[in-house]
């Protein structure tokens, strides 16, 4: 166990030393990986912020309930009781048909038309605000109300919520796709730097194989190189994300003051950040593994 640990510590130190020997190549590779990873990471963070913003919006989806034209006062009272009894409503209010007509005639261009009307064509209406903005919950309430005999029609005002959800879902899928693509790019970058490493260390690999090195032994330093390079690239990406969010946040703060809101951008959290590092290390290691294994099976001394 002790020798095993010593072996690995030795390998890490040797890998860091090798990176320090070629600082430019190392820095360029780290930047390439960092930028590639920061793109989906920044988008992910922005998307999360938008989702949070949407959740915090005061505007709630509403359901408009129109009574039948011949609905009685008793039926209105009945509905009032029913709405009161529901626990999934945040608010509801009654809009009498006369008030609605007054409201309508105030609108420009409609006044002339309403003046010519001999009788009020508008029904009594209720505006119901569900507690939840989930499309399912809204639909559920709408269906329940629609079933009442004295109700003519129910209009869900939840389409915008569905649309927004769809757009956010699309955004998430886009980020996932981008992350996959750039993850593949990371594997390629890592594989390529390892390939160059292998070229400069061909003699060492050949001699090691001739004197009894296992594939695992030969692979190990390259794997370390790939993993460490991925780690540094991941850290660079994290830095890029934090820096971008920091810079954006000041603009967002200005903007939200103008809207009399208090909204702060959230940066990459600890857990997503650690996941980012882990992915970078895994992908870097994968690139190294693929390249070294390919070389090992190509060389004739195996």
């Amino acid at each position, binding site marked *: 166990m002790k020798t095993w640990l*010593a072996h690995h510590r030795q390998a890490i130190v040797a890998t860091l030393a090798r990176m320090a020997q070629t600082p430019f190549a190392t820095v360029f590779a780290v930047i390439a990986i960092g930028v590639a990873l920061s793109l989906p990471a920044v988008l992910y963070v922005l998307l999360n912020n938008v989702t949070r913003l949407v959740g915090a919006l005061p505007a709630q989806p509403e359901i408009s309930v129109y009574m039948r034209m011949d609905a009685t006062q008793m039926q209105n009272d009945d509905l009032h009781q029913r709405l009161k009894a529901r626990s999934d409503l945040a608010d509801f209010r009654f809009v009498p048909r006369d008030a609605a007509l007054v409201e309508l005639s105030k609108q420009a261009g409609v006044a002339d038309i309403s003046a010519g009307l001999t009788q009020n064509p508008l029904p009594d209406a209720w505006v119901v605000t569900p507690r939840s903005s989930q499309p399912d919950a809204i639909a559920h309430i709408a269906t329940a109300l629609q079933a009442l005999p004295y109700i003519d029609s129910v209009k869900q005002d939840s389409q915008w919520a569905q649309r927004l959800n769809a757009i956010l879902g699309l955004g998430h899928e886009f980020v996932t796709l981008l992350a996959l693509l750039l993850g593949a790019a990371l594997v390629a970058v890592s594989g390529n730097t390892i390939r160059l490493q292998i070229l400069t260390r061909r003699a060492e690999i050949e*001699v090691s194989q*001739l004197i*009894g*090195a296992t594939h695992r*032994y030969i692979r190990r330093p390259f794997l370390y190189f790939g993993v460490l390079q991925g780690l540094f690239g991941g850290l660079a990406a994290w830095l890029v994300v934090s820096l971008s969010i920091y810079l954006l946040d000041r603009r967002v703060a200005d903007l939200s003051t103008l809207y009399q809101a208090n909204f702060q951008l959230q940066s990459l959290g600890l857990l997503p950040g650690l996941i980012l590092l882990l992915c970078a290390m895994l992908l870097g290691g994968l690139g190294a593994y693929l390249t070294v294994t390919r070389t090992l099976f190509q060389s004739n001394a*195996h």
Partner: protein
Amino acid sequence: MIRFDNVTKRYPGGHEALCKLSFEIGEGEMVFLAGHSGAGKSTLLKLIAAIERPTTGSVLVNSQNVGKMGRGAVPYLRRNIGLIFQDHKLLFDRSVIQNVLLPLQIAGFSRHDAASRARAALDKVGLLKREKANPITLSGGEQQRLCIARAVVSRPALLLADEPTGNLDADYARDIMDMFKAFNQVGVTLVIASHDEDAIRTYAGRVLHLDHGVLQA
């Protein structure tokens, strides 16, 4: 220790390097492989170390069939074989002692044990004073001796040498051969490929003559 049964090696392209070879080498023997260049001496050594595989027939080393050996087992076979190359195959990006340490690092020796063993091996070949030098600064004879130190440092039971005195002058060549003799006296089995008939005659070992891949009686 080594047994060839009807071994033929044909390289891709049709060239037949070895043809129906059968012989046996016992433990502790010192055997010379003689023959002109291209007679198949190197190929024969490569078959023993599983660097090449026979086309037909079987090559047994310590009663293991190395021709059928899995990839995973080959490294462990090679750790018991010291290989000495005509072109030395030294690594010029590290010091003399680092070159000798390589087999021990691969075999997983502790740093302390490895260092003392490596020094002992360098002492045996008379290069202890040059341990910190870069191998590229060594003469041809010294490089060959360094290659020998690397081959014997893990104390293998079998040494394979391919033209170890190939491009050395007579004095150096005698040094090397005396070293081999000394290893043989402590029980190491040696197989030495050489086209140097004089050297072979001086050491009166068993000689296997190869001619165009065929063993001469």
